[in-house]
């Protein structure tokens, strides 16, 4: 943003009493600023009772308006469409396409105005009715400004058509019919008027037109000088008006609603073939004459004047100050940028004015629970800082529902924002773990490609199994696929579950080898070995010999590894003693079963060999 010439606007907070109290604050993600007061003593040991309040201040409150939401939605479509067709905009058709886009924006504003107007009429209480009405006038002003910009900057109407466009512009926005024109049409020389303005055919060149008009103008002057209308003061003043006499026009001030109406009327009669570059002089004097030193120009007047002066930057600057949200300046500036009208204007972040405004607008959208999705597209079309701004904002969207979380993730994944994907998945995974939804936690950590967390969740699964004797979320574990490789613990979990499945299908030999491989390949955590060995027991106790002699030796090795590494528990703790007892019993049982199996295996293998 450029420097401000004026004082920054002051927002007063309906606070309390004295100037003794300081304010402090914090930023929220949606640019919400929390202001509250505290005391201001240097020594914090003194407690000064303060009585004021905390305020939450939000910018861009418009985001929350129902009617405006339509404006945001529809203009978003136009914006994205414009960015996309940029490459196709070439040659002669370019200008007409850009004008069409401009008209689209304007029709969206008008539609919004209409709806707001309906709401204002239907309003139950006068206060909100007034508020909606003021919104209507703001929208009307926006359309007025945009329309003028379209004529002057986009259409780039040359002398001749320029005044026609301006006439249309004034007619569209002035409530009263141009009663002066009506008068003129009913005057002495209607035919001259009608043929004179028969421009659509456009068979005449500008010079021809000027000559014709000069001729007519001189004729009127002659009539006046000859006092042809002396007898009729009404006709005389009419003639003066037709000659563009300012004084005469001003006498009819009450029929002119504002200075630009006056300006266009004046031009109509005094200089209909006005050139664009001369417009500003007429504009300035019209403004001065109309206001007559009684009142000073309003912000709207300044904006329009800047437009007449073809000072685009000034127009944008004044609009930014006058309007309460960034919608208008962001979209208008973007369109003007496509018209190649903005000089490259480097700002702090290294981005140009168009991008700067779009970033502001998009940031504002992120404050809204659903409009943030529109904001994503705007950031996409900001080449310098769009991506990083999106990264910063998208992480702050509250993930209330799974659906919303998936939406956010999809957006991040489409843009290869891996850091954000990881962070969001981690948040969701942690939340799932805290709510004991282990399956959900696991799938989030897989999506995040977060090995450490996958390990953590897998451990929880295994612990759950040990406690309850069964697995939760079997579907998920059974269908891990290549994701299983994410972490060793996860692989173990998947394989262990496979063991159970295979066992359930009574494919004992396969189950046995799988079980053994889990221990020998070292992917099973040592803490789980006892469980695995215990799982082996039913296989050892089967009628047929399942584990071969070699396999049995390996199992015995594992058991010895496990028991030798165990510290000797001695001590007064009775629970510990009981646990030890259970452990010892288990180990004994295993030793017995393994020994028996070994014997049977040796015999069986010995017999077969002997065959």
């Amino acid at each position: 943003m450029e420097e401000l010439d004026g004082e920054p606007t002051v927002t007063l907070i309906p606070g309390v009493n004295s100037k003794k109290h300081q304010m402090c604050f914090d930023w929220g993600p949606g640019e919400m600023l929390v202001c509250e007061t505290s005391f201001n003593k240097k020594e914090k040991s003194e407690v000064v009772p303060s009585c004021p309040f905390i305020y939450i201040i939000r910018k861009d409150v418009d985001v929350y308006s129902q009617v405006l939401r339509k404006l945001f939605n529809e203009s978003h479509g136009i914006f994205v469409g414009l960015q996309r067709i940029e490459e196709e905009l070439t040659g002669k058709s370019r200008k007409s396409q850009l004008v069409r886009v401009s008209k689209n924006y304007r029709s969206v504003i008008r539609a919004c105005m209409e709806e707001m107007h309906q709401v204002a009429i239907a309003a139950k209480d006068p206060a909100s009715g007034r508020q909606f009405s003021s919104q209507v006038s703001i929208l009307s002003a926006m359309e007025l400004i945009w329309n003028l910009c379209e004529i002057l900057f986009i259409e780039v109407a040359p002398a001749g058509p320029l005044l026609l466009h301006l006439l249309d512009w004034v007619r569209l926005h002035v409530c009263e019919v141009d009663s002066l024109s009506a008068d003129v049409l009913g005057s002495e020389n209607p035919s001259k008027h009608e043929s004179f303005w028969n421009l659509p055919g456009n068979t005449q060149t500008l010079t021809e037109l000027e000559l014709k008009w000069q001729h007519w103008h001189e004729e009127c002057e002659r009539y006046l000088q000859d006092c042809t209308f002396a007898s009729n003061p009404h006709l005389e003043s009419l003639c003066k008006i037709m000659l563009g006499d300012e004084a005469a026009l001003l006498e009819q001030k009450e029929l002119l609603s504002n200075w630009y109406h006056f300006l266009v009327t004046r031009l109509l009669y005094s200089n209909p073939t006005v050139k664009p570059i001369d417009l500003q002089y007429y504009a300035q004097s019209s403004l001065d004459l109309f206001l007559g030193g009684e009142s000073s120009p309003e912000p709207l007047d300044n904006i329009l004047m800047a437009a007449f002066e073809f000072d685009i930057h000034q127009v944008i600057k004044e609009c930014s100050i006058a309007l309460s949200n960034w919608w208008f300046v962001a979209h208008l500036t973007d369109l003007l940028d496509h018209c190649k009208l903005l000089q490259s204007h480097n700002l702090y972040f290294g981005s140009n004015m168009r991008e700067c405004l779009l970033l502001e607008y998009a940031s504002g959208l992120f404050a809204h629970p659903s409009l943030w999705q529109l904001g994503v597209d705007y950031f996409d079309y900001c080449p310098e800082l769009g991506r990083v701004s999106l990264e910063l904002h998208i992480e702050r969207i509250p993930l209330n529902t799974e659906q919303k979380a998936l939406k956010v993730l999809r957006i991040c994944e489409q843009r290869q924002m891996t850091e954000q994907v990881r962070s969001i998945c981690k948040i969701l995974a942690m939340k799932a773990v805290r709510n004991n939804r282990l399956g959900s936690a696991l799938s989030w950590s897989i999506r995040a490609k977060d090995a450490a967390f996958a390990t953590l969740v897998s451990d929880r699964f295994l612990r759950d199994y040990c406690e309850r004797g069964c697995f939760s979320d079997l579907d998920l574990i059974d269908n891990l696929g290549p994701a299983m490789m994410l972490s060793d613990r996860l692989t173990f979990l998947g394989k262990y579950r496979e063991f159970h499945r295979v066992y359930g299908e009574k494919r004992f030999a396969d189950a046995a080898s799988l079980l053994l491989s889990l221990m020998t390949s070292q992917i099973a955590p040592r803490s789980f070995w006892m469980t695995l060995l215990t799982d082996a027991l039913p296989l050892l106790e089967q009628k047929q010999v399942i584990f071969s002699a070699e396999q049995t030796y390996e199992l015995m090795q594992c058991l010895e590894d496990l028991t030798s590494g165990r510290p000797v528990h001695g001590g007064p703790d009775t629970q510990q003693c009981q646990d030890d007892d259970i452990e010892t019993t288990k180990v004994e049982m295993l030793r017995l079963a393994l020994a028996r199996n070994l014997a049977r295996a040796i015999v069986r293998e010995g017999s077969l060999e002997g065959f």
Partner: protein
Amino acid sequence: WLACPFQKDTHDAQMDYYGTRLATCSSDRSVKIFDVRNGGQILIADLRGHEGPVWQVAWAHPMYGNILASCSYDRKVIIWREENGTWEKSHEHAGHDSSVNSVCWAPHDYGLILACGSSDGAISLLTYTGEGQWEVKKINNAHTIGCNAVSWAPAVVPGSLIDQPSGQKPNYIKKFASGGCDNLIKLWKEEEDGQWKEEQKLEAHSDWVRDVAWAPSIGLPTSTIASCSQDGRVFIWTCDDASGNTWSPKLLHKFNDVVWHVSWSITANILAVSGGDNKVTLWKESVDGQWVCISDVNKGQGSVSASVTEGQQNEQ
């Protein structure tokens, strides 16, 4: 700007990561948490545990759950946690000899780490190691007389940001800034052995430094820190990372009174300053590198300015 009246008697207030909750702390020793969605103000928790006025609160990153830290005149730092919908005291750190003035969570990439600055001049760093355990590292005499503020630098991975192989943690260079009663701002860096070393000393203030704020990273090679002081000045410090460790201060403004607080918006394009004259001013850097005040938020009598009405408030 829309303002809605809220609650009385607080020293600090902080929005959570998503802007859905607000934590406040007060001289009445309480820490309160409000649900502020959709313009509402519902008290969720009133946490008691401190024995003195509570100066500051800080929300941890949501991936660690709902965790809030608070620090107080009672020399303690308390970490609160929400479990199954209720807020409880999760940990208490009583390692300081004097009032603890400031707490700040490190970037979530580093883990769950809290920096605490105290009037005893020390800065302590609490790192969560799991199973309810916190490891403490203390920097004694970080600032003579006392430390008033701590602020972490954003996480930046040195070298390229290619996906690290799974399970391997990227080598972050952890840094934070502190401001103290010695009128200095100090930058601290964690060495390879895990010890914290003073890396830089930034001198420009002529009185106690009240607050420091390290700006979020927007991908540019420069680092930016804002500082404010009892001397009424606010400085913006910038360092061009490419060249090394030279920090240059630029005076944002000299206020007529002590400046308490500085804070960056999340995309670091606006700096809010709680300045003298009981105003919060917002600043932006303009084309030519000058800092411009773009808005004043003034506390005072009278009604809210015309652009905001109650109608709009109700519309939410």
